[in-house]
């Protein structure tokens, strides 16, 4: 290479600083007290990197760049302002956008360079294209399911895994053929189309409760495809950003799969949704104890320590603000209220925390499964709102249960358990929950928001 031009040196320095800012950004995110500084660092790094790039001498025409930057901003602003309950589908959508960018750039790079593409370069480019394309359609499918544009029920058929793995296999064969001889340019479109189909097929068998794992996995794929793009463009900045994103998605996927007791290979091959075989038939109409809002309020009022366990049902019912009011009403009576949050509660990692924080519940009240589980034995009332499988004691005791071995919140160790639920219908996977038939369990049938509202009314009416 020639000695670097002055502008190139400026650009590289801007990239180095941007890289440092990105790492700081994630480091500051470790605690809620410094997290917003992290966003600022990320923004500063981004502006610096983009400004630096615009100085690049190879750019001859700024017209399209300007139009695209403006258009992207116009699309981005509403995507940043969606409701908090819509964050999972927004996140899936943004994985799709990221993957789209990577796939398009990769495609353009191939046609600019072919047929003379070095082998290693072609291999990385293939990885970029395959990961990018499957993440694109996979994320769009996930977003569609989360937005309920597509049916949420998992769709399974015989030989599904075989079909999916063959699709992926064919894509890899095409990639290998291209690596061996990049002049087979007619094969290139296949390397886009097949993973696009694979992305759709991969998400077809996924049910709602598997979404936290899937979103994390897609996050990881998006990061890795961006890192591959960094190899192709020889951009260290992009390699690092992609590696950070990939690592983040990977860690979250592992967390989620552990929290559902799935093996890691199970996650890697995207073989989710296999669990809901035909578990928990039988045992019809076992007796349960139910209670009215009045009774529930009386029990809560007599408690010293209450732990609320929220699940996706709370998000669906938009009950988080009512839950906060309940929390306030109990606090006013000197009752300690904490929240126990399972890693896979909701539709993406950390989903419940965001919704509860939005409802103004202080984050020090939000405890993770490991932090709260020891407390249940000293808890008077465990109030389960819209959560099901994550509280199912069968996961501890029944080896035949599909969720056996999954770590759960030990709500059954509390003195009294109250479960707000629409009806006795089984949750995701149709797994029977023995928790509901315990003597200490009271079922509160109704809409989460309405029922909590009624409890609050009773609490304020009773004592004035």
């Amino acid at each position, binding site marked *: 290479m020639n000695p670097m031009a002055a502008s190139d040196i400026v650009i590289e320095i801007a990239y180095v600083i941007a890289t440092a800012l*990105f790492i700081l950004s994630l480091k500051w995110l470790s605690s809620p007290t410094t997290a*917003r500084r992290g966003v600022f660092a990320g923004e500063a790094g981004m502006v610096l990197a983009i400004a630096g790039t615009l100085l690049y001498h190879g750019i001859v025409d700024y017209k399209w760049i300007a139009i695209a*930057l403006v*258009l992207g901003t116009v699309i981005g602003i509403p995507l940043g*302002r969606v409701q908090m309950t819509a964050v999972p589908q927004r996140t899936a959508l943004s994985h799709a956008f990221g993957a789209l960018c990577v796939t398009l750039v990769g495609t353009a790079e191939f046609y600019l360079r072919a047929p003379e593409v070095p082998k290693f370069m072609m291999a990385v480019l293939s990885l970029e294209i395959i990961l990018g394309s499957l993440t694109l359609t996979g994320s769009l499918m996930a977003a569609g399911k989360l937005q309920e544009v597509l049916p949420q029920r998992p769709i399974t058929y015989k030989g599904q895994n075989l079909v999916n793995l063959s699709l992926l296999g064919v894509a890899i064969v095409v990639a290998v053929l291209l690596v061996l001889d990049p002049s087979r340019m007619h094969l290139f479109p296949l390397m886009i189309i097949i993973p696009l189909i694979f992305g759709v097929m991969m998400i077809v068998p996924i049910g709602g409760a598997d979404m936290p794992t899937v979103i994390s996995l897609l996050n990881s794929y998006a990061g890795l495809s961006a890192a591959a793009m960094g190899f192709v463009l020889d951009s260290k900045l*992009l390699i690092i950003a992609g590696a950070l994103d990939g690592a983040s*998605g990977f860690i979250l996927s592992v967390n989620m799969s552990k929290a559902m007791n799935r093996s890691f290979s199970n996650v890697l091959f995207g073989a989710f949704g296999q669990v809901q075989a035909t578990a928990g038939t039988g045992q019809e109409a076992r007796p349960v104890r139910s209670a009215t809002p009045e009774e529930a309020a009386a029990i809560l009022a007599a408690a010293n320590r209450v732990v609320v366990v929220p699940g996706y049902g709370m998000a669906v019912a938009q009950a988080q603000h009512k839950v906060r009011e309940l929390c306030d009403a109990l606090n006013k009576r000197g009752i300690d209220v904490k929240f126990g949050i399972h890693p896979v509660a909701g539709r993406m990692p950390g989903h419940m*925390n965001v919704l509860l924080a939005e409802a103004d519940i202080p984050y020090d009240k939000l405890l993770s499964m490991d932090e709260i589980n020891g407390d249940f034995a000293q808890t008077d009332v465990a109030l389960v709102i819209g959560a099901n499988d994550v509280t199912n004691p069968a996961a501890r005791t029944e080896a035949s249960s599909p969720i056996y071995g999954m770590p759960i919140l030990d709500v059954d160790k509390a003195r009294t358990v109250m479960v707000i639920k629409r009806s006795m219908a089984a949750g995701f996977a149709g797994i029977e929950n023995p928790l509901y038939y315990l003597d200490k369990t009271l079922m509160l049938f109704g809409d989460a928001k309405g029922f909590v509202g009624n409890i609050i009314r009773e609490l304020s009416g009773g004592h004035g």
Partner: protein
Amino acid sequence: MHSDLLSSLYVFMLAAFIGFEVIRRVSPLLHTPLMSLTNALDAIAVVGAIILAGAHKSTLATMLGTIAIVSATSNIVGGFIITDRMLKMFKSSGTKKA
């Protein structure tokens, strides 16, 4: 060329380790903002798209590059906005009634 790719591999390996160490420390409380923030940072791919769209090497490249800028920019803008909105909501008991 060859040493370029090799040094890129080193960079990737080191960045992955830094990523693991830094992200492992992020509290589960903030996993949703973590995902939206890394998503915004990942959209740094816009840098490659800008060069592609501006260099005018072929009509196809300019076209694909332009679309790529649009999608990456929407991730940058949307990602940072929503991450900050979420983080603003996380308050501790001490500052709650401020």
